[in-house]
């Protein structure tokens, strides 16, 4: 169908029109207008454009080097994260590996922590005074104790830290593959490796591309790992962006740098979309069957894979263990890396938990994050499906516009919202938004849009549209089709996205600092107040305590989202007989409320 035709058929659906109108308003009010405002304010400080920022930046050796490093890291990370990520996904979901459940838990540790503490965790192990380094130095006498620094160290740490998306989304997409295609390939003589390379991975393309973009973005925005481990030679651009954002006179530099990174991300996005275009990523089989774990036939390969899997397990879990341990130590011990079991106390926890603000910030953050995560996912579910279904210029335009929050750092996004809505503005019905509790919610939702959209779109790619058609022809309205047919299929992905959004917003500082209602302050602000204080002794200890507390919250979230559905799935593999339809006449047990079951049924089981 020609582009125009598709557009015409698109606007014919009332559902699309409604979603389109809401979306247009949202984009205009919260993505375009505030950011255009702030960009104009920075680039056209007195009404006329100045090329000052570009001039300054491009003549700065340091900026160029840092920018180069950021790009290098982004590109390298796109590769390494995929390698490691795909490997751990295969090990936990595709191959029959002993103890894959335990391995999963180990690899999943990145779900629940990150940032500076994670980098610190690695430093405890591989840093110049780290456990592993001390061991190595003893074994290899001439070794440089500072070996774990620079590009290599940053890349390694960030690689292991950012496989979360793989664990969640690639694994999920993997479960959507029709097992019979794998059987068919095997039947045609394909080896395990060929099947992986030619059947399985191509089907995962949309998801792999989406997570690649995320890895790229993570690399570009790397902050703490280079700061902690990069050393003199490998510093990245983000610290500079943050400094400049905070200085009104240099904000144009920050904006320019951010825009450069943002555009790079968009280019990446465009390339990936192009690569993905035209492919079929849903099963064309009539009814597909559930994936079964594969044996690795070659004994050598099998042993090797097991070995690497458990090695990675150690790499993933050690830092977490140490972080938890260190959270009981005093700040000096943490910073000097000297840990003795005698000085582990609960003092840190008591200090953090008994302060006056108490639990309130936790609750505020949980509520804000949960609301934002749910709204972002809920709203974008429709949008993502429409964008995935209608491939024309209007859809592409919307899609790219929705990625605006990836272009600007969150502090600028927040400033944009303030300058746009600190006075009555017709875009939001004449309301003043600053000083209200909604503005932070809006910001939270906004910053999560690009990630949510990418991941949702990728998971929708695995849904064959004839299911929708079948439902529609039975009279189901768009929303109903959505709820009953599409949602169950993308639910694992949607739940994972919600959980990740939730987790990442819990300790947000950059947005909250500008937008939080003074009486409803989220955790990020409290953490910052407790942990900054010129990096004092208590500060760093508090950081660890907060990290562990956040680990607990996010761990619980992930358990609620994943642990439970995993259990369900296990049970469903059992014979279907207990559903006991023998009680005929009384109706199937599922007849009354199959809707409840939908929510937890893993869509991946059959697709």
């Amino acid at each position: 169908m020609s582009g125009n035709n598709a557009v015409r058929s698109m606007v014919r659906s009332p559902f699309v029109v409604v979603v389109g109108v809401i979306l247009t308003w949202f984009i205009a009010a919260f993505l375009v207008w505030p950011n255009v405002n702030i960009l104009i304010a920075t680039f056209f400080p007195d009404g006329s454009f100045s090329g000052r920022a570009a001039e300054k930046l491009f003549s700065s050796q340091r900026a160029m080097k840092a920018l180069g490093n950021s790009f290098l890291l982004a590109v390298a990370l796109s590769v390494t994260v995929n390698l490691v990520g795909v490997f751990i996904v295969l090990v936990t979901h595709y191959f029959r590996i002993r103890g894959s459940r335990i391995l999963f838990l180990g690899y999943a540790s990145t779900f629940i922590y990150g940032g500076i503490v994670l980098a610190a965790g690695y430093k405890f192990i591989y840093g110049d005074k780290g456990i592993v380094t001390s061991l190595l130095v003893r074994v290899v006498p001439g070794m440089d104790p500072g070996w774990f620094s620079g590009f290599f160290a940053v890349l390694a740490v960030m690689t292991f830290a950012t496989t979360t998306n793989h664990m969640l989304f690639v694994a999920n997409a993997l479960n959507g593959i029709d097992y019979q295609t794998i059987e068919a390939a095997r039947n045609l003589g394909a080896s395990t490796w060929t099947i992986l390379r030619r059947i399985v991975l191509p089907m995962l393309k949309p998801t792999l591309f989406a997570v690649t973009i995320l890895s790229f973005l993570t690399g570009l925005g790397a902050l703490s790992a280079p700061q902690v481990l990069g050393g003199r030679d490998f510093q990245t651009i983000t610290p500079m962006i943050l400094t400049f954002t905070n200085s009104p006179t240099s904000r144009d530099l920050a904006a320019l740098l951010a825009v450069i990174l943002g555009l790079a991300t968009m280019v990446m996005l465009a390339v990936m979309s192009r690569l993905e275009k035209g492919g079929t990523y849903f099963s064309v089989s009539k009814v597909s069957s559930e994936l079964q774990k594969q044996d690795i036939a070659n004994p050598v390969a099998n042993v090797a894979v097991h070995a690497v899997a458990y090695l990675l397990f150690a790499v993933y879990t050690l830092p977490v263990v140490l972080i938890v341990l260190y959270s009981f130590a005093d700040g000096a011990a943490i910073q000097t890396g000297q840990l003795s079991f005698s000085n582990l106390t609960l003092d840190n926890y008591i200090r953090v938990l008994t302060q006056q603000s108490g639990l309130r910030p936790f609750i505020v953050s949980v509520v804000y994050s949960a609301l934002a995560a749910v709204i972002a996912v809920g709203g974008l579910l429709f949008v993502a499906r429409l964008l995935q279904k209608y491939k024309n210029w209007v859809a592409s335009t919307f899609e790219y516009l929705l990625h605006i929050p990836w272009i600007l750092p969150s502090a600028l996004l927040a400033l944009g919202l303030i300058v746009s809505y600190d006075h009555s503005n017709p875009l939001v019905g004449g309301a003043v938004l600053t000083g209200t509790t909604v503005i932070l919610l809006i910001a939270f939702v906004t910053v999560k849009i690009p990630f949510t959209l990418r991941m949702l779109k990728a998971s929708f790619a695995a849904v064959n549209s004839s299911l929708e058609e079948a439902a529609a022809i039975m009279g189901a309205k768009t929303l109903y089709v959505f709820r009953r047919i599409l949602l169950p299929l993308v639910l694992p992905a949607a739940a994972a996205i919600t959980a990740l959004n939730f987790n990442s917003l819990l300790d947000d500082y950059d947005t909250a600092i500008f937008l939080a209602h003074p009486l409803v302050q989220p955790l990020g602000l409290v953490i910052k107040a407790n942990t900054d204080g010129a990096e004092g002794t208590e500060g760093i200890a508090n950081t660890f305590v907060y990290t562990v507390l956040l680990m607990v919250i996010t761990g619980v979230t992930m358990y609620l989202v994943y642990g439970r559905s995993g259990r369900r799935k296990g049970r469903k593999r059992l014979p279907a007989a207990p559903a006991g339809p023998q009680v005929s006449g009384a109706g199937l047990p599922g007849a009354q409320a199959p809707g409840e079951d939908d929510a937890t049924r893993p869509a991946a089981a059959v697709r």
Partner: protein
Amino acid sequence: MIRLENIEVTFGDFTAIPHLDLHVRPGEFFTLLGPSGCGKTTALRTLAGFIQPAGGTVRVDGKDVTRLPSDKRQVGMVFQNYALFPSMSVWENIAFGLRVRKEKPADSDRLVRDIARRVELSDEQLAKNVAELSGGQQQRVAVARALVLRPKILLLDEPLSNLDAKLRHQLRQQLKDLQSEFGITTVYVTHDQDEALAMSDRVAVFNKGVVEQVGTPQEIYDHAATEFVCNFIGDSSALTPDFVAEVNRLSGAGLSTDARSYLRVEKASLDRPADGGAAVGLPATVVSRTYHGLHSRYVVRSHGADIRLLVREDGAAHPEAGTATTVYVQPGHILQYHPGSGAALAQDRAVALP
């Protein structure tokens, strides 16, 4: 009831249906028949509203529904690829439409169980996940899911292709019963001519997105309008000009020897037909015989033409390959088509061919 006018469907730059006009009458059992890939599914999907035609109009009950979304069209459909909902059990799949209509759960359950029984799905199977069914069982779920709603218009895309003969016959009967009981207008796609001829009120024969002929089964079979239809429907042997000339000579009929001439397998015989007044016998040799249970299929050669014919296996003895025999033919049964256009030659105008 249903009118497709001037429909054109394209996929990218591939034109699946260049120009289609169809008229399905209310309550009719209408069949689309045609070779694989000719556009049957495409036509059905256009009717259902899943494909927006590049041109033309779809009318239902006189109303233009070309732009109406499919959930508003009140048609039921069985998909060629089933399109079963993987996240639901068999019961839920069948009950889906009822739940959409907000039927009472008890009613739904009754209706689901009733239709399931009709398509021979057991209670145990109703509780299963669709992936746990056999291919034929899945197909039956797809059929049941459409039937349970008793739509005014029912579109069936090869709904019985994976079923065994017994079950197919049984379900055909169910379909016919429902259709006449509720006056459901049915558009049926099948690859099975037998089915098409046995079940349909009218049949449209498709070729490359174009309708070659629309008519009752008997019209289609006995008076195939084009050479394509003649070849596609039923089984016939191509005759050589030589053979036709010989028939002309023996019977005095004025058949064109330039036209493409065919003879239906069942119109030729090795015995003189009981009442075969005009039948002429031509000497022939048996080329082969294959056993088909119900009958044996012979190929006999006469005047360069390989003529296929059936001989019933009624226990009598039959000539074997290589023996000489006589093949009986009535000139009136010979079908003739214009070699260029493929259009049928009116039997009385046969001589008019230049």
